[in-house]
């Protein structure tokens, strides 16, 4: 019995170990400072890096957070404070469906909603797609974290003559913050590696651009393009960038977990 369970546990880890191992083998040779500092160069020229893609990905994540975080937090607070209303039940259902929607579909939706009216691919469209993935994750995490707060905490604040707003922002919010932060960090890890929703929104860009209304480069897009190319130098950079992506996601998840663990110890 124990052996079977242990085998299952080990098999769960096996894919990650294999992925990390293979990526390290293929990617480490291409992992050098120039990867982050230099722009792509035409095929045949030596050197070059993916600085535009790393900056683009960072900007896309920040813009997606700007769009998705406030709405997600407010939606989550509403779901927690008014769990039974028709609005809440609907929002919760929609959030769960959205969470299960293939990300390419979200990309198509962002293309129809942002790219077509603007008549161009843009960082904004990419950020909108990523924000749509972010939104249900943040709303549901916020709801869960606020709901596990003891109801007496809310009562105590209201009994002091606090308004609902003050109660939410000064007492419940701060108490739930470590859990919400964990959820947000894990959600960032999720969108940082998304490729499909960016294909026809952010589109990618071989040049340096941080303009919100221009097409923008992103690490997953660049990996996709370079990996499909027949050039050995590009492929090596794609492996290195993929390794960086996995390490970033792994690092973010670890940070998220340790925030949650710290909170667990204190309570």
């Amino acid at each position: 019995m124990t052996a079977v369970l242990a085998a299952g546990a080990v098999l769960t880890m096996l894919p990650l170990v294999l992925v990390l191992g293979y990526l390290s083998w293929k990617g480490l040779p291409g992992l050098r400072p120039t990867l982050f500092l230099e722009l792509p160069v035409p095929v045949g020229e030596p050197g070059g890096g993916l600085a535009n893609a790393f900056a683009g990905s960072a900007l896309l994540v920040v813009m997606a957070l700007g769009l998705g975080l406030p709405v997600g937090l407010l939606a989550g607070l509403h779901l927690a404070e008014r769990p039974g209303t028709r609005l809440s039940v609907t929002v919760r259902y929609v959030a769960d469906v959205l969470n299960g929607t293939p990300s390419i579909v979200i990309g198509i939706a962002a293309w129809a909603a942002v790219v077509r009216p603007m008549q161009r691919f843009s960082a904004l469209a990419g950020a909108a797609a990523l924000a749509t993935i972010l939104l249900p994750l943040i709303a549901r995490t916020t709801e869960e974290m606020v709901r596990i707060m003891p109801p007496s905490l809310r009562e105590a604040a209201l009994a002091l003559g606090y308004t609902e707003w003050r109660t939410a922002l000064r007492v419940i919010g701060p108490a739930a913050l470590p859990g919400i932060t964990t959820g947000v960090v894990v959600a960032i890890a999720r969108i940082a590696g998304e490729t499909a929703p960016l294909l026809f929104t952010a589109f990618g860009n071989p040049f340096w651009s941080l303009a919100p209304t221009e097409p923008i480069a992103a690490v997953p897009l660049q990996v996709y393009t370079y990996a499909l190319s027949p050039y050995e130098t590009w492929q090596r950079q794609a492996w290195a960038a993929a390794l960086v992506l996995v390490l970033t996601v792994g690092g973010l998840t670890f940070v998220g977990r340790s925030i949650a663990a710290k909170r667990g110890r204190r309570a």
Partner: protein
Amino acid sequence: MPEPGAPSTLEAVGVTAGYGGVDVVREVSLRFDVGSLTAVVGPSGCGKSTLLRCLNRMHETLDRAHVRGAVRLDGEDLYAPTATPLAARRAVGMVLQQPTPFPTMSIRDNVAAGFAGRGGSRPRGTEADGIVEEALQRAALWHEVRDRLGRSPLSLSGGQQQRLCIARALATGARVLLLDEPTAALDPRSAAAIEELLYDLSRRTTIVLVTHNLQQAARVSTDTAFLLDGRLVEAGPTSAFFTSPRDARTEAYVTGRPVAPA
């Protein structure tokens, strides 16, 4: 209007309250005099907590709750059209069954939270420190926490946390203190300390104490009110309540016999 913190008279007049169209408290009229400590007793589900929560307008925070009647604080109806629930809750403080220190604030800030809700006119600086110290003194907690005011309240014992909540309620300037089974979650020694504190506080503050513990009611209260099935059966000085109850149902309850519903 009297000074904040000055003892006041609180009076419930024909209070009926409940949830979802069902009355839990029916036509209760009860007067809490200056400097009295009134124990509200009765079996589980008799409506004593609901009655208490009507006295500072906390009952209406629940879904589908209703309240009728008047609650007069020194003659002014807390349910008057011009009155607000926030003002009612600042004038009539409340302490819950579970100790509820705010976990992300320091011990000092927990007490200061009692007056932080007042907005722009709230005390600051040394004035705020003075109020915090006075509230902690009155809650008999000052000497235990004076050298760790910046620490987390979660480092305190359950009984200390409950006294911190009492200090927080006093810091609002509340003229009446409502307590809903404040010792139910505490060990006997901490409970005894709270009882002693309530006894001392009642000289300066009007106190209403909901309890299922008759011994506690007998030990600390000046007056006792008995609720059954949402109705007030009997209220009066505690000594008379326990030794010569007027109503047969009260006598049955205080002697531990089954009580026939009203």
